[in-house]
């Protein structure tokens, strides 16, 4: 080969190579442009991964949901979307979703299912419900649900059916704190965390257990605006890590802390004198009542130094009215929780932070229209949990779940034999799982509406698969609070599988139960009627475009601080002393009862949540499961030493109602007298990715409830732990 040929070859080869490389370099850009040209929609809607209902914008490309972005228009969610919100996509495309109606084919809990048509499922269910009605009356059916925008239709079906037995999730969660604030202020306010200067939190692990707009505000106020955060928790949580002061309070003694604070604030005349005089009743009785609760006494109870309690009380009152004792959400801790929350409400009241910036603010309201529906008769029979007798002050519509279960198991005052469950997992949400299973086994029929196979669905007779929140239109709702927002939920894709919305499921049942007249409308009609009243030209188009309507002029402060305003209480004022409580045989002012201590060798079991794992809605999500594929029991090193347990060892935790096995984490971040488990593991349903991983706290927790509200008390259980 001569030189010329050689050069030609190499030159040609190099040129060819250049062409090839440059084409390769531009190829990925070309591909991206192609996708951009194809169908790409951005549809605003509302998240359903938790109660906060943040506003999202769904990015749909070629009919597939690619991403959920936060919607910056919402003053509530303010351009944030938490891990669960982002993971909502996985709920839609989950392979283990329920894709068509299922009817049980084996024993309860065996997991044998046969697919059914909707007609079959409805026929079967209606037949069973009617049979129960025949034999036991409509009150022989139980209708339990967890909040959702379509829950109203489910509840209405139960009521139209004639059953008084509607039970909802607040009785497992925040019923006690809501009742405490309602009895004090006539309403449950929101907390203006963003503008507060001094914030005290008992538990309410807002920076870890749950991501809400309050989470954002707490970070902003403490880290940008220099607010001070005092945090009480037997566990060193993320909130504890970020707080200015964290006290590992002895569990169940928060009331002592609050009483001592009131003792200092009233004793040193640091309360808001004018506010108390103008807007409250019962101050004198309160002042007398707290005289004996000195910080030194509280130190004995809480293990928080007396001088810190006194100092915090002074700092709190100095910062008022921009000082709040944050109420939190889940108040299902102790049998005395209601009174603890009452003390909290009273403490907030006497520093005068009501309806002030940086204090507690009654929720802004927005009026929605209503579709006129055929009214049904009120149920005739009394509730099976005998709310009037047992919890006369509590919210009747929510019931008292644990008392209800006891009565159902004892078949008093009458038997309940059919159970419809909507978007709820009582198997894990209720303590003492063995009793829940017993309650299920004594039912003639169990029907479940859910998106995925929860443990409760696993034990059901019929499962109605619901479309996910990204596949349906829901009634419009007002998210009330400091910034009331009307949120809209519209489908961003058509349902992937043979699923229906709760309304459609209810309508199918209603038809067969001869109750159609109460549900004779479409979702479009329902929504239209709701939004008619909004001050917009074309409300529905507006909502479809923005996903929400933000009421102007909020937040509003001071609207109730007028002479004419009447609080929704017996006296018309804020009730520091509550006659209603006295009349119903309860303490009108909070009385402290020291909590029982675990006997030697036992530990108090306390629960908590992790934001990306909390709630049944998100426990079967692969993107979220990756962060915490199992739970372990937390033991303080002293505890671990005494039991001969090392980090990672398998242990057995046992209470009087059950025993579970799981691995131990030996950590400094829990008190030596407590053990901790993350809630939501040990699932039985084989369609759950984490079935069998970790252990279920529901199997260990003993049945206990708050005396006044009936709210579950989930921190009253003592467990023994041993190495296996």
């Amino acid at each position: 080969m001569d030189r010329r040929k050689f050069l030609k070859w190499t030159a040609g080869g190099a040129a060819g190579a250049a062409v090839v490389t440059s084409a390769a370099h531009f190829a990925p850009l070309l591909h991206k442009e192609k996708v951009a040209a194809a169908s790409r929609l951005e549809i605003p809607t509302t998240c359903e991964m938790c109660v906060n209902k943040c506003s999202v914008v769904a990015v749909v490309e070629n009919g597939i949901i690619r991403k959920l972005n936060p919607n910056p228009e919402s003053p509530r969610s303010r351009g944030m979307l938490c891990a669960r919100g982002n993971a909502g996509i996985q709920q839609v495309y989950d392979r283990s979703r329920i894709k068509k109606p299922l009817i049980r084919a084996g024993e309860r809990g065996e997991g044998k299912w046969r697919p059914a048509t909707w007609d079959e499922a409805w026929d079967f269910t209606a037949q069973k419900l009617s049979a129960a009605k025949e034999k036991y009356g409509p009150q022989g059916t139980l209708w339990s649900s967890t909040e959702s925008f379509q829950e109203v239709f489910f509840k209405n079906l139960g009521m139209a059916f004639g059953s008084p037995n509607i039970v909802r999730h607040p009785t497992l969660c925040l019923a006690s704190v809501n009742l405490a604030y309602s009895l004090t202020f006539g309403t449950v306010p929101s907390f203006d965390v963003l503008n507060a200067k001094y914030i005290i939190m008992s538990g309410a692990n807002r920076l870890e257990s749950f991501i809400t707009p309050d989470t954002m505000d707490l970070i902003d106020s403490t880290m940008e605006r220099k607010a001070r955060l005092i945090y009480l928790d037997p566990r060193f949580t993320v909130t504890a890590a970020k707080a200015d002061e964290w006290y590992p309070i002895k569990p169940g003694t928060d009331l002592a802390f609050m009483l001592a604070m009131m003792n200092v604030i009233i004793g040193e005349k640091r309360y808001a004198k004018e506010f108390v005089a103008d807007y409250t009743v019962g101050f004198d009785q309160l002042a007398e009542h707290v005289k004996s609760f000195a910080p030194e006494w509280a130190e004995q109870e809480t293990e928080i130094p007396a001088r810190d309690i006194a100092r915090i009380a002074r700092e709190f009152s100095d910062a008022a009215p921009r000082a709040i004792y944050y109420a939190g959400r889940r108040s299902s801790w102790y049998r005395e929780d209601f009174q603890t929350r009452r003390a909290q409400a009273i403490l907030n009241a006497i520093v005068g932070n009501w309806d002030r910036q940086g204090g507690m603010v009654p929720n802004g309201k927005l009026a929605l229209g209503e579709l006129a529906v055929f009214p049904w008769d009120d149920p005739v029979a009394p509730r099976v949990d005998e709310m009037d007798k047992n919890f006369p002050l509590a919210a009747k519509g929510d019931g008292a779940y644990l008392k209800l279960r006891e009565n159902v198991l004892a078949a008093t005052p009458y038997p309940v034999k059919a159970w419809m469950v909507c978007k709820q997992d009582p198997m894990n949400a209720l303590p003492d799982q063995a009793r829940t299973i017993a309650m299920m086994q004594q039912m003639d029929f169990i029907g479940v509406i859910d998106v995925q196979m929860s443990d409760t669905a696993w034990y059901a007779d019929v499962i109605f698969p619901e479309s996910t929140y990204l596949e349906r239109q829901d009634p419009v709702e007002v998210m009330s609070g400091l910034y009331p927002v009307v949120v809209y939920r519209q489908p961003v894709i058509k349902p992937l599988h043979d699923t229906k919305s709760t309304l459609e499921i209810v309508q199918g049942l209603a038809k067969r139960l001869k109750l159609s007249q109460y549900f004779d409308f479409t979702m479009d009609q329902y929504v239209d009627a709701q939004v008619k009243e909004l001050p917009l030209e074309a409300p529905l188009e507006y909502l479809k475009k923005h996903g929400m309507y933000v009421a102007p002029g909020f937040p509003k402060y001071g609207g109730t601080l007028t002479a004419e305003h009447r609080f929704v209480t017996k006296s018309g004022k804020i009730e520091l002393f509550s006659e209603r409580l006295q009349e119903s045989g309860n303490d009108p002012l909070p009385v402290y009862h020291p909590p029982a201590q675990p006997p030697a060798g036992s530990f108090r079991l306390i629960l908590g949540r992790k934001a990306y794992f909390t709630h049944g809605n998100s426990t079967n999500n692969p993107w979220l499961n990756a962060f915490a594929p199992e739970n372990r029991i937390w033991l303080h090193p002293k505890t671990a030493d005494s039991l001969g347990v090392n980090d990672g060892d398998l242990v057995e935790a046992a209470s009087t109602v059950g025993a579970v096995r799981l691995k131990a984490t030996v950590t400094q971040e829990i008190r030596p007298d407590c053990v901790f488990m993350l809630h939501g593991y040990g699932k039985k349903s084989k369609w759950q990715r984490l079935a069998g991983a970790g252990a279920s706290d529901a199997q260990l927790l003993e049945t206990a409830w708050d005396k006044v509200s009936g709210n579950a008390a989930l921190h009253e259980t003592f467990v023994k732990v041993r190495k296996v």
Partner: protein
Amino acid sequence: MAVHQKRYVLVIDSRKCIDCKACVVACRAENSVPLGESRNWINEERRGEWPKLLAAFEPEQCHHCESPACVRVCPTGASYQRPDGIVAVNEAECVGCRYCIIACPFDARFFREDKGVVEKCDFCAHRVDCGELPACVETCPSKVRVFGDINDPSGKVRELLEKRRYRTRKPEAGTGPQIYYLL
């Protein structure tokens, strides 16, 4: 008005980070990152003895360095740096030799078994080029992250870096990381 060269950086206020993992999930959704790997992560530090305890969280991802080692060692030029500082991978040219993974001091890159190429955070370049923020920045509930042009004299990034003290990670590796952690 002087036209300057954009240089994108990330400023992070770790005090605000609560390890909620929103950024990790948002990135996974936005960039179709398979489970088992992650383009971003949260570093955790826990120490102390009861009851004097500390827990701190620090988000991290590719630092889009000033003199990126990964770009330098790439034999095909698949790893490249844009004029605006974003370091990205041209998948078409990547042969999967994984030299860049080894060269990165921050372990920011990973190998995609299914595709045979290397992947890492690219500051959501496809979003940034449309005027949007990277997914992790947009989604963060605590607003830990500030993304922007360090060369913009009136930008938020400059404002923060001029007012606050900051540090970068592993400066001794000599790559000039461009994630600034406010102190």
